[in-house]
């Protein structure tokens, strides 16, 4: 058992994957010195410039090259410095990586991992704080993984690298240093597409992922003091969604709060709500409630504007309390 931050857990997964398989390469901006968040620190020394290398500042170019390297028999892990800067590469990801296997009737799967830090709470302003998972979750052919804990970050990144298909691996930048936890040395392998129950309870289900999982758990803690027992489900993967786990949570409580930092409209919450409405309607004892970022372009830079944007334990608890009383 080793105690690690999320950043350390991701670095550890990269190191282990590269030790186990010499097809694994790491490329992106500034990755040779460790990247902006020091996640890839030490990899260049251990694995050399053939397998860890800086690219020109051109996301479409190096994501496209990652796709080519994957087709050519490697297992590239591409780092995007901030998910906000992934947009130039969306054409490569949506037109090429996502469709290549289907359109070639299975001849050309693309075993590519694109890692990107997302989310706010670190004074990143408009262009260093966004959550863009819903854009990618909408695209058939892409898998979108969003771990919340160090153990999941490590196990799911290893699973993503071993996966035959393109995986968008989104890391909440606030969890990098703030979330520290034990990671077993013999970490069991994780499966992409599997949610996990973080807390059991019968009154209200809170469904979340990423940093917001931790806010949801804090809210559940507060509510327990008032005698409201919350079940907290960590989705871990937003594409594909774990339909059965979501329906179980809804059936077991009859009341559901969905929490994400991303904007409300068109977010993952809408899809989760639709799944519940279709598959567990008869079990519901109240409206499905969403707690999410507001529909403004992004959070502000000033801490007051940032806090006004981000959902937190207090807002989640208030929503769950109201729903419990419904």
């Amino acid at each position, binding site marked *: 058992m080793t105690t690690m931050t999320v950043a350390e857990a991701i670095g550890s997964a990269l190191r282990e994957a590269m030790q186990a398989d010499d097809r694994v390469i790491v490329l992106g901006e500034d990755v040779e010195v460790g990247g902006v968040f020091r996640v890839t620190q030490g990899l260049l020394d251990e694995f050399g410039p053939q397998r860890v290398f800086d690219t020109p500042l051109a996301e479409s170019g190096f994501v*496209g090259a990652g*796709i080519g390297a994957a*087709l050519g028999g490697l297992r590239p892990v591409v780092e995007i410095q901030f998910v906000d800067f992934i947009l130039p590469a969306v054409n490569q990801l949506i037109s090429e990586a996502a469709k290549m296997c289907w359109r070639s*009737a299975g001849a050309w799967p693309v075993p590519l991992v694109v890692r990107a830090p997302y989310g706010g709470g670190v004074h990143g302003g408009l262009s260093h704080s966004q959550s863009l998972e819903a854009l990618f979750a909408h695209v*058939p052919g892409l898998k979108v993984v969003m771990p919340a804990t160090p153990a999941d970050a490590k196990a799911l990144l290893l699973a993503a690298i071993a996966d035959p298909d393109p995986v968008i691996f989104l890391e909440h930048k606030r969890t990098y240093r703030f979330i520290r936890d034990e990671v077993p040395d013999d970490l069991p392998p994780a499966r992409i597409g599997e949610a996990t129950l973080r807390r059991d309870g019968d009154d209200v289900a809170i469904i979340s992922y990423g940093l917001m999982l931790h806010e949801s758990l804090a809210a559940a803690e507060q509510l327990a003091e008032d005698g409201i027992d919350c079940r907290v489900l960590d989705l871990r993967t937003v594409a594909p969604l774990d339909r059965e786990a979501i329906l179980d949570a809804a059936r077991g409580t009859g009341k559901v709060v969905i929490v994400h930092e991303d904007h409300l409209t068109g977010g993952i919450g809408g899809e989760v709500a639709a799944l519940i409405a279709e598959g567990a309607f008869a079990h519901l004892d109240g409206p499905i409630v969403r707690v999410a970022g507001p529909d403004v372009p992004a959070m502000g830079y000033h801490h007051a504007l940032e806090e006004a944007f981000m959902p937190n334990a207090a807002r989640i608890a208030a929503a769950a309390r109201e729903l419990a009383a419904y």
Partner: protein
Amino acid sequence: MELWHLMLLARKVGERWFTLNRQGRAPFVISGQGHEATQVGTAAALTPGKDWVMPYYRDIGVVLTMGMTVDDLMLDVFAKATNPNSAGRQMPAHWSSKELRIPSQSSVVGTQVPIAAGLAWAAKLRGEDSVAAVYIGEGGTSQGDFHEGLNFAAVQRLPLIVVVENNGYAITEAQEKEMVIRDVADRAAGYGVNGVVVDGNDLLLVYRTMQQAVQEARMGGGPTLIEAKTYRTTPHSSDDDDRRYRTREELELWIQRDPIDRFRRNLLDDGILSDEHADQLSTEADEEVRAAEARAAAAPDPDPATLLDHLFGGAP
């Protein structure tokens, strides 16, 4: 002689595709009629199954030279389940072959350049002396991905050859609307890459130029950009009418420079080919295309129940 035959076959396939479209038997076709010397000449300098190829949608001549068959192409135009490119999922001329190292192509223009750079990177890292050849029209060189891919390959000194098939038009837009320079090859200097302009209708010149670029790439000399000046003698696709944007006089001028006729004359002059033999080969090529067409027409169509298959790899 073999290359002339490949050019001839590519032309016949393209012509037949257009006829099938006009007969209402193929909803959409596109071809590279007029580009045959560029396509066959460059592809002939590559090693099938070893070198990576990212052709674009005009490249019937490239894929035939790399080893796709006329049967494959006729299955493709009918979008049959057994067509090797996409099993009927993509429009015709969106190439793919695992054995021939031709990764699946999309209709999006420019994305193939960074992908080809990545293929070249993989070959280099794995210690193979394969090269990657990527094909694009001059219109496609306006895309950011053209720049990003070529720059990536230049910085990493990758074995990449970019073949620009410059036919002077991006659908309806003449080259003057696409760029202010005359030669796309001038752009290569901006990446520290060798840029070469060739007469794209001169088969042997194209072949020799490509051969040299491939040799340099294999020896670690980095990328080359080859701009082949040519002309498409048909509309952009079956949905285009080229009378709206170019004169018949211009078209006529280029038909006189036809690469197949031109090389036929060379072969005749050198005594390698006789008129009778050439005519016979042409007739045989027609017959080969029609026979393949008949087989393809009878091949199974895609089963609607397979629509959801192959979203992901690995697991069935």
